């Protein structure tokens, strides 16, 4: 009777003594985010506007011509100095568009190289060089 009790206890101890604790394995798998892959907006074509030069000499002629063409005889104008500034502001705005596009494309190239590959870039090295207009008479 005593042996019948001791034997199972010994076997239990033996089995539990032999068992080793297994190490936990933690698997971490990186899941890539879906590329955003947004398309840049389509090119906006600007409306063609007609410039009119008005001087104290030609003002009557200009307004008469406008009346002839059924255009309201009113001019929204700039002085010559302000026209220079408007022209330079145009260059600034254009440059800003180019810079922003270049940044967007650089981000795309960096984070989505496969998607960006082969797409036309506005600025490519060697393609966009400053030129001097010192001799330009136009």
């Amino acid at each position: 009777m005593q042996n019948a009790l001791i034997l199972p206890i010994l076997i239990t101890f033996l089995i539990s003594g032999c068992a080793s604790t297994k190490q936990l394995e933690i698997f971490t798998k990186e899941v890539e985010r879906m590329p955003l892959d947004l398309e840049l907006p389509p090119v906006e074509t600007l409306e063609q506007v007609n410039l009119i030069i008005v001087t104290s000499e030609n003002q009557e002629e200009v307004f008469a011509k406008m009346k002839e063409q059924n255009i309201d005889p009113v001019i929204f104008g700039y002085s010559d100095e302000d026209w220079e500034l408007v022209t330079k502001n145009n260059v600034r705005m254009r440059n800003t568009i180019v810079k922003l596009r270049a940044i967007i494309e650089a981000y795309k190239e960096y984070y989505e190289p496969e998607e960006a590959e082969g797409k036309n870039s506005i600025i490519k090295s060697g393609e966009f060089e400053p030129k001097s207009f010192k001799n330009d008479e136009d």
Partner: protein
Amino acid sequence: MLMGAGGGLWYVQHLKSENEILTLNNAKLEGAVAEQQAVIEQQLRDIETKTDINKQLTENNAKLTADLNLANEKFNKINASGERRDIGNLAVNKPKSIERIERKREQQRARCFEIAQGSPLTEEELNATKKSQINAECTNLANPNYVPY
């Protein structure tokens, strides 16, 4: 004696299993080292790419600033008689011709905006090599093959 033999056998089995675990651990560590090495290499490549992109953007920004300076230069150009170009004076004296020039320039400016937005260059723009063929408002963008003369 039997107990001793059994204990010895158990000990050998235990050592074998420990050895197996250590071998597996070693393989895992080697794998981890290789993964870390790959991560370091990727980071180095990223740094290189980032540096290249920054360099390119800085260069292009400098060129765009040069473009603005050229626009400024056009209005302050000194003519053959040593006087500063005055578009106002020119417009007073020759309103028709300045109007014609500015209308043409306005069309060119509109085209420059299209190119800035990413519109592809036309064959005509790409092949422009003469002053009469270029877009004088943004030659840098519109006529990459034009060489000033």
